[in-house]
């Protein structure tokens, strides 16, 4: 169990933590989310990958300067106690919203496709229970589950070939058929998909080879981007623009194209397996939320897990209005994600200023 600040994440843990936390629900809907880009969406993902890579560098630089502190404690060191706690509270809200969004979208898919005769409440509760169980084991348990999740799901990429076989490759032309404004719009639509690596600063103190952390995190990031590009490219050749715009879960339909002699309707299988990707994402954010509570309340208690779990699984979503839900789950969570990605830059600047003034000694 996770009891102290010991360095315990090895190379593979870091790679797959980054990789698997990134891939959650977004991959299922990605070609739909980026449908405004039409057939040009697949190469925009490369740009998003490069942008993510660039924002990874300040995280590493900050982490390496505070090798024994996580983001929450760095916040308190650099911003002072109350401002630090306030920013930690924002991060807590972000984690909770992410868990709520990811689990909500997945459970809704399960309800529509696999369990059409049930409501979502019980499956959601069970999902959060399992995620709590994983997160309760600490970040190393989450990392180990990420490795398991990777090998349990990566072979699904093989089934893209049915889509590619049926696809029309002329769709990828004309290349670069977008104006500057449209490219920016595409970046806005596609970027939420790569969020997840920003948690690195939370588990940075646990990493064994901190100096190589940037390289390992980058490998994880680019595995995810490559998966995204593969799925997006297959969608581009397999679907028409109308289909990408109107299908809520294009990846589901990519699975539907698969014909095997011994197995039919593999998409049901795919949705079930997808739970690995959802669980890794949710459990990592649960862990992040829990240590956030730890730092805000200045106590390390396991009961916080239950608290967090209750908040995300309790059907309070029925209470708030749909308009507010849409704002929370579709907009606020993404803006907070961007904030969290850019946050280390701010902290680095403050670190630099305070170092110049001679008031800091990490």
């Amino acid at each position: 169990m996770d009891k102290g600040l010991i360095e315990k994440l090895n190379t593979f843990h870091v790679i797959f933590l980054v990789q698997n936390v990134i891939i959650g629900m977004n991959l299922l809907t990605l070609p739909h989310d980026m449908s405004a880009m039409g057939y040009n969406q697949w190469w925009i993902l490369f740009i998003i990958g490069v942008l993510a890579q660039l924002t990874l560098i300040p995280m590493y630089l900050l982490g390496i300067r505070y090798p024994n502190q996580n983001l929450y404690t760095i916040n308190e060191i650099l911003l002072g106690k109350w401002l630090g706690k306030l920013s930690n509270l924002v991060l807590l809200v972000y984690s909770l919203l992410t868990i709520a969004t990811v689990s909500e979208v997945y459970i809704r898919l399960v309800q529509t496709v696999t369990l059409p005769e049930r409501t979502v409440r019980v499956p959601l509760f069970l999902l959060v229970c399992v995620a709590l169980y994983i997160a309760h084991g600490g970040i190393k348990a989450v990392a180990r589950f990420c490795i398991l999740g990777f090998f349990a799901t990566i072979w699904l990429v093989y089934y893209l070939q049915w889509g590619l076989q049926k696809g029309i490759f002329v769709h990828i032309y004309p290349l670069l058929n977008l104006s500057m404004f449209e490219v920016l719009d595409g970046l806005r639509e596609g970027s939420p998909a790569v969020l997840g690596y920003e948690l690195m600063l939370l588990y940075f103190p646990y990493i064994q080879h901190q100096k190589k952390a940037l390289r390992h995190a980058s490998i994880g990031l680019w595995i995810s981007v490559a998966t995204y590009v593969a799925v997006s490219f297959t969608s581009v050749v397999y679907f028409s623009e109308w289909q990408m715009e109107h299908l809520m879960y294009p990846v589901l339909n990519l699975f539907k194209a698969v014909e095997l002699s011994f197995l039919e309707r593999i998409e049901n299988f795919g949705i079930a397996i997808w739970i690995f990707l959802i669980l890794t994402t949710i459990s990592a954010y649960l862990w992040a939320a829990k240590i956030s509570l730890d730092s805000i309340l200045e106590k390390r208690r396991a009961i916080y897990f239950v608290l967090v779990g209750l908040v995300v699984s309790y059907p309070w979503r029925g209470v708030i209005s749909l308009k507010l839900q849409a704002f929370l789950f579709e907009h606020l969570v993404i803006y907070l994600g961007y904030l969290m990605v850019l946050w280390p830059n701010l902290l680095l600047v403050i670190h630099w200023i305070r170092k110049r003034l001679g008031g800091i000694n990490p």
Partner: protein
Amino acid sequence: MRLVAIFQLCLLAALSSGCAVVMERPALEDLGMIGVMGFDYLNPRQAKIVVTLPEPSKEAKEKTQMYKTIAAFPNEALMTLSPKSEKTMSLAQLRVVLFSEEYARKVGIREVIENLYRNPAVGDNVFVAIVKGSVEGLMGAKYENKPEINQFLNDLLHPRRDTAFHSFLTIHDTIFRLHGETSDLDLPYLEQQQGDIQITKIALFKRDKLIGFLTDREGKINQAIRARLQLPDMNFTITEEDTGKKHVEIVVDFVTSDSKVKVHGGVEAPSFQIDMKIYARVLAYTGRRDLENPDEWVKVEKDLEHELDRQGLELLKKLQKLGVEPANLTDYVRAKYHGEWHKEMAEKAFANAKFAVHTDFVVIGFGTLQTSSIEPDSMLALGRNQGMQQALGHIPLQTIQMGN
């Protein structure tokens, strides 16, 4: 640790409540898996819907159950059909959707196909076909020498080389083309002929309404232009100018085919250059040429090239006249166009297009019978299943000199 124990207890309590559910989900044997769904025209709003499902019970007299109802949408049909059946109707194993010609002409197939596409229970690999007369008549008839009809129709419409003159469109493909920016639909047309069900023609669609047909021969050329790798056998009747023999019959077995489309000119008036490369074996030949002579052999190839060029051009002009484009040529125009693209632009481009078809026809063999031992005018009977190693490419002439 106590916390974990409490967790597990809660989990157990939650899971055990599953036993208390009163209305159970139907088990597999309680489900009636609809295999074929058909739509006949009744009025502009409603259709006569026919469904068939395989009957697994050994005591049943018939192997297939058939139900009819009147409804606007597939889901509505399920609702009204359920009280008639002892089983819970399910669309999870739907394999084939049929439309009568009248329905496809008057109502159009878009709404039904979209309705099925929206339903997550329905797979994407469901074949779509058009039926001459009524679907009810076709599905209700007895076919003595056929397997169960759900199975039979699925197998009939499944991609096979022998029927590769249509595009084997599934629900996904139909939606793809209906809402695509370029290509139009070409669906197989089923006819009931002397106790058989046969794919006789290809139904052409403008948007979602049937407007015309292609013969299977035209369908084959359409598929060759679409660069389908495997094509069914084809026969040609040509005139050999130099030997003076008219009505020479040649049957060829396409080994591989490929086509490259180049576009010149803008969106307003594009000109298409279609280069087809075909490797084939000659299965039957009634001409006067000596096929062992390489020069003569080349002449046969040239004759076939001219004939395919002519027929390809004829097909494209026919399609242009009908205003439908199942050959997916305008996609190449779209691929060169920067900016927003609409279906109307594809239609306009195709209407103003010019075509040039060029075929490179390579005959890779004539079978294993020495040609000179046969009367020049008689039909060559050649082994169909032989020479597969020749199929791998263009083998130099001397290596397949026959009968020496």
